[in-house]
């Protein structure tokens, strides 16, 4: 029997979508569903773990084992899930507040452990769900509900940060270009290791529709001339001031992943001497 071909539709759910009309996250949802179809991941073998935020609702909109967890903790929950079931595909998703503010500690250390998950951040430079407060990627000077006199802080550069931390796959997408984003997700999923995809995904309600145009005007798609295996090249790209890089910025192979390491340790343990049942351990207390 031929396997049934999966389409993006197979990844839709009946959970009502509560995003504002025009929200960038719709594009990300489409891209994820298309990527799942292209990768032909059976829905039951896909885990989608998100934090809390408008963007994080995405876990409910994909036919999969979805988990809309708590604010900032998508990565450790996804990592734990992958560690428990390395044979499954694990996607993590969330917002800029979720990932770069409350979740920063996990972002740093998940990269360090190279957990084999694909992390899609819908970066809208604002806190959407809580109705418009400043986020770590809100541009300096911008007015938000919690910076009524303009954002005094300098924004964080998540791409550069990930690069510095040794992330093994770093990409940037745009929710206004679903096909391109889909490809980034497909590649990231195929990558063995932590695949980080920052997505410019405008919040039309609290940052305005013009944010789409900003990306359209300043976005530059990386082409052949960019070598994603070069740290220096990648670094240069992450430091662009006006232009917004889109595409795979950095990609290296061969770094052991969290679950590979766990299996490694299990093998090492076995070599050290076989322990069959928990009763066999009694000897250490003898």
């Amino acid at each position: 029997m031929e396997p049934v071909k999966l389409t993006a539709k197979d990844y839709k759910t009946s959970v009502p979508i509560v995003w504002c009309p025009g929200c960038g996250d719709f594009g990300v949802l489409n891209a994820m569903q298309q990527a799942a179809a292209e990768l032909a991941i059976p829905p039951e073998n896909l885990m989608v773990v998100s934090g809390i935020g408008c963007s994080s609702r995405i876990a409910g909109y994909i036919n999969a084992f979805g988990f809309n967890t708590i604010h900032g903790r998508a990565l450790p929950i996804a990592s734990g899930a992958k560690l428990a079931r390395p044979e499954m595909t694990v996607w993590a998703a969330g917002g800029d507040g979720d990932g770069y503010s409350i979740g920063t500690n996990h972002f740093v250390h998940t990269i360090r452990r190279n957990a084999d998950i694909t992390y899609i951040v819908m970066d809208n430079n604002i806190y959407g769900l809580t109705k418009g407060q400043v986020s770590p990627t809100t541009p300096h000077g911008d007015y938000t509900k919690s910076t009524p006199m303009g954002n005094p802080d300098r924004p964080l550069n998540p791409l550069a940060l990930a690069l510095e931390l040794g992330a093994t796959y770093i990409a940037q997408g745009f929710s206004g270009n679903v096909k391109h984003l889909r490809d980034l997700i497909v590649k990231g999923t195929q990558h063995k290791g932590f695949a980080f995809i920052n997505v410019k995904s405008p919040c039309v309600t609290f940052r305005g529709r013009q944010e789409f145009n900003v990306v359209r005007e300043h976005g530059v798609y990386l082409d052949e001339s960019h070598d994603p295996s070069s740290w220096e090249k990648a670094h240069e790209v992450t430091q662009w001031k006006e232009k917004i890089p889109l595409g795979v910025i950095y990609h290296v192979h061969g770094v052991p992943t969290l679950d590979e390491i766990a299996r490694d340790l299990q093998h090492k343990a076995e070599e050290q001497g076989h322990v069959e049942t928990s009763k066999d351990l009694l000897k250490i207390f003898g």
Partner: protein
Amino acid sequence: MRDVTLAIAGSGGDGVITAGDFIVQAAARKGLNAFMLKSYGPQIRGGESSARIRISDRPIYSQGDFVDFLVVFSWKDFARFSDEIKLRKGAVVLYDEADSTPPEEFPIAAELGAELIAVPFKKMAAEEIKVPLTKNMVALGVIAALLHLPLDGIKDAVMKKFGKRKPEAAQVNIEAIDLGKSWVEKNLPDGTQVVLEAEGAGEPKLVMTGDDAVAYGALHAGVKVFAGYPITPASPILEFLSKWLPHFGGAVVQTEDEIAAITYAIGASWAGKQAMTASSGPGVALKLEALGLAAIAEIPLVVVNVQRVGPSTGIPSKSEQADLFQAVGGTPGDVPRVVLAPSDVEDNFQVAIEAFYIAEKYQIPVIILSDQFLGERSETIDPDVLFARKRVIARQLAKPSNLKEYKRYKLTDTGVSPMTVPGMKGGQYITSGLEHYEDGRPTSSGTMHQIMSEKRARKLPLIAEESGFVRVYGDEDAELAVLAWGSSKGAVREAVERARAEGIKVKAIVPQLIYPVPEKKLDAALKGVKRAVVVELSFGAQFYRFLRAYYDGLPKETYSHARSGANPLLVSEVLEAIKEHAGAMNAPQEA
């Protein structure tokens, strides 16, 4: 004596704990019961430390209020333990003759009539063995000879520790032990009045700490993912599982913080594997938000809290029972959860198994409230009793044939709904911390919230029914009862026995399941009781208040005996409380 309590006190480098370990192991090999409490100052190395060991051929419940036999390498260090080490009248005290403290300044009251013996521990180690570090082994030989401890057992233990990897070290240590022994033969041919006359049952016992026991129990129960972050006094659980879980196909992660630890465990359990995390009060505080997620999403989870003295950093290396409120009510919202309290080292093992049983069967987070007093002490254990109770279950999954229109949170009579894990076709659903409909879809309906609150709560009486183990010791028909929980059990049980020996009718009641309250079993235990004293190491009397809040069956005359922790509960203080209340009960009542 058939029940001896000895203590060794010194500085970090003195090897006090190592010596204590050997004594306990020797006792275990002989089939004797032993119980060892370690105590350290705030220094990591070089500071004061003490080992307090009780050995008997009868069951041992507590550390023993008074010390019969004391070895001090330095009076200065000993003075730091004055809160903890109280000598019995007529105790024997060996001290290093090299200590410069003048005898009249020894921090031991003369009126105790202690027998003071100066021993050249340091000198013998340095001059005869030529290894000053073997001072503790010389002392071991002295102790063994004077107390009539099984010397061969001690040597066996030394061989086991060093024999294979460092045969020379083993040899040197054994020489030092023999030297100590001959010193006694030469200098104290008549010995002292403290002699251990106990005979072991013959069958060798195991030696385990409470932390190891809970980790081992989890392993036995099938834990596959453990995530933790170091913290005193819970770190040994992380360390034990780091070493052994990979042997059982599992994985351990030392995460970046406690929040990551519990969320790793939640992710792993949600994905289908038994999972656990462990910490102590301050670390558990950081886990409370995520615990609520496990509760509303009905994800099996085991969280161990090895309590220490609070609030805040408090006294990290000492014990207290003041995280009960946190366990029962620390997470925002009305949170279904289970709280279990082990009461001795063996129970730590059993409770870990029970925790997984409940977590997996009822899809609920379970908190194990151990404490430093349980976690860091060593006890001898009969290997046969460990595996006597069989309650290991695997993840309970929905039938694959039942996954049409699958409802993860189907309303059922028991509150337990069919669960799927990734890989089960048709078993997909949305899990979240949001209130939800039966299929997991989020809702903000107050009506659904009430319905789901009721569903989740339906599990609780079933758990109390199935798992509400209540220990009762003493006179079944006593009108006076002592209520206690967790590590207080030991001193309370011993106090009850002592009171009964003095003719007081009394019983001790110690539930293993704290929340939900095992009402029926408590009712049965309290039948006929007219007066109860709730004993605990919590300044705020948390157990007493908890019982008042949740349990309707307390006798009208229920009193609280509560104080803050750090100093372990004494048998004598419980006994005093018993006597006071027994007396008051028999006193003529005013009209």
